[in-house]
């Protein structure tokens, strides 16, 4: 039986792990290689690194980081951030990552997804989607509603800073049609709040696509992971802050999920 995956996420800036709140304020959370090794031994099913370095030096820092992490890790890991070309992805994959994540690069140039799939195989291509509720209604959007009325989920790029106009559910479907092997789906509204995943968003996208979906944004406690797995067909749940400061945290979450009958690797 295939398990649901628990994935710690490390946001990396200039070679250090950092933690942000709602894509904004940032504080230091440790050394990426040290954290990776600890997570690998601590029961993580996979790791995700998102490089939020914005500089010319990016490519060199990434290759160095990926190589150091790959040397200590014997579980899969994804690296995303600034992947705008096949060469960017090759830099990540040939240095030891298993998957390359692309977000802004794919929105601005959707054919990149197909090029990556044809070059490296679908399983290496993760399309990251950052989505935010938009209550200004437009035609041909996938409409949901909550206590405050109808809304749709809009794709954002540049680390959540720019609204791209695209409908997140439709974009996920298109990304898969073009070659994505996995969707990393982050709710900007929930990110950093520790009030739980957006299960409406996660459920809609996971039902719309045939590839695994990683739920992200808002996890503050094990119960949030249980909810996203019980209420949606998400394949994996990603979290950052609940794991950074506690070595037992991942096994603790897994024992909790196992106790609720959710299949996990123990």
């Amino acid at each position, binding site marked *: 039986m295939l398990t649901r995956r628990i994935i710690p996420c490390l946001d990396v800036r200039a070679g250090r792990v950092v933690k942000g709140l709602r894509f904004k304020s940032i504080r230091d959370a440790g050394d990426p290689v040290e954290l990776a090794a600890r997570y690998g031994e601590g029961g993580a099913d996979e790791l995700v690194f998102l490089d939020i370095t914005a500089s010319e030096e990016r490519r060199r820092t990434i290759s160095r980081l990926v190589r150091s992490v790959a040397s200590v890790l014997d579980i899969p890991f994804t690296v995303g951030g600034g992947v705008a070309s096949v060469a960017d992805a090759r830099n990540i994959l040939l240095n030891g990552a*298993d998957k390359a994540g692309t977000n802004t690069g794919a929105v601005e140039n959707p054919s990149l997804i197909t090029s990556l799939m044809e070059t490296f195989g*679908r*399983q290496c291509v993760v399309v990251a989607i950052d989505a935010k509720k938009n209550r200004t209604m437009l035609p041909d959007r996938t409409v949901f509603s909550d206590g405050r009325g109808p809304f749709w989920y809009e794709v954002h790029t540049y680390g959540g800073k720019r609204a791209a106009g695209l409908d997140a559910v439709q974009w996920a479907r298109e990304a898969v049609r073009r070659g994505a092997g996995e969707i990393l789906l982050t709710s900007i509204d929930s990110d950093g709040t520790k009030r739980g995943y957006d299960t409406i968003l996660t459920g809609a996208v996971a039902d719309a696509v045939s590839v695994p979906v990683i739920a992200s944004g808002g996890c503050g406690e094990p119960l949030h992971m249980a909810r996203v797995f019980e209420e949606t067909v998400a394949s994996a749940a990603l979290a950052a802050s609940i794991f950074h400061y506690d070595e037992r945290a991942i096994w603790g979450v897994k024992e909790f999920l196992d106790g609720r009958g959710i299949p996990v690797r123990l």
Partner: protein
Amino acid sequence: MVRLALFDYGAGNIFSLRNSLERRGAEVDVVTRLEGEYSGLLLPGVGSFDTAMGRLSAGAVSGFAGDAMPVLGICLGMEVFLDGSDEGTEAGLGVVPGRAVRLPDTMKVPHMGWNTLRMRRPGTLLDGLEDGAWVYFVHSYMARPRNDSAVTAVSDYGIELPAVLERGNYMGTQFHPEKSGEIGGRILDNFVRECKR
């Protein structure tokens, strides 16, 4: 020291496999031609069936490995043991009769994540491992051997899929041992030990 040849078809991550073998005391050469003195051959699991078979040929592999050198095929590297694949038009190595077929679309494809092994018969790679061991899969195609005589372990993904194939000196895993934590490490240890014999 045991010296292994790791065949590079050109695309994807072979760093992890190399690194993992080196941690187990092997000397690893990444090669694009099958020549020289080696104690074992690795066919990694990156790329597509036709790109792999475009660089390999059944004659070159059997000439290099003969019937004694241990060969470990991982994922795609195992699928090429078969006669052919739905993924491409090239002929496979034909070591195990049968074909690689696409996973049924009733399930999420690729099959990506941790799954358990169900042991079917004793083999070299799984020596010392128990039923239910966790390993990491990432694949869209699966082996469909003509008969199950080479299948030493299976996994359940809606259907029962062959997880480990062994036939003579050819051993293959549909999953990635280099990404399967401690269990994967033991599988690679078993392979390296076989190469030393």
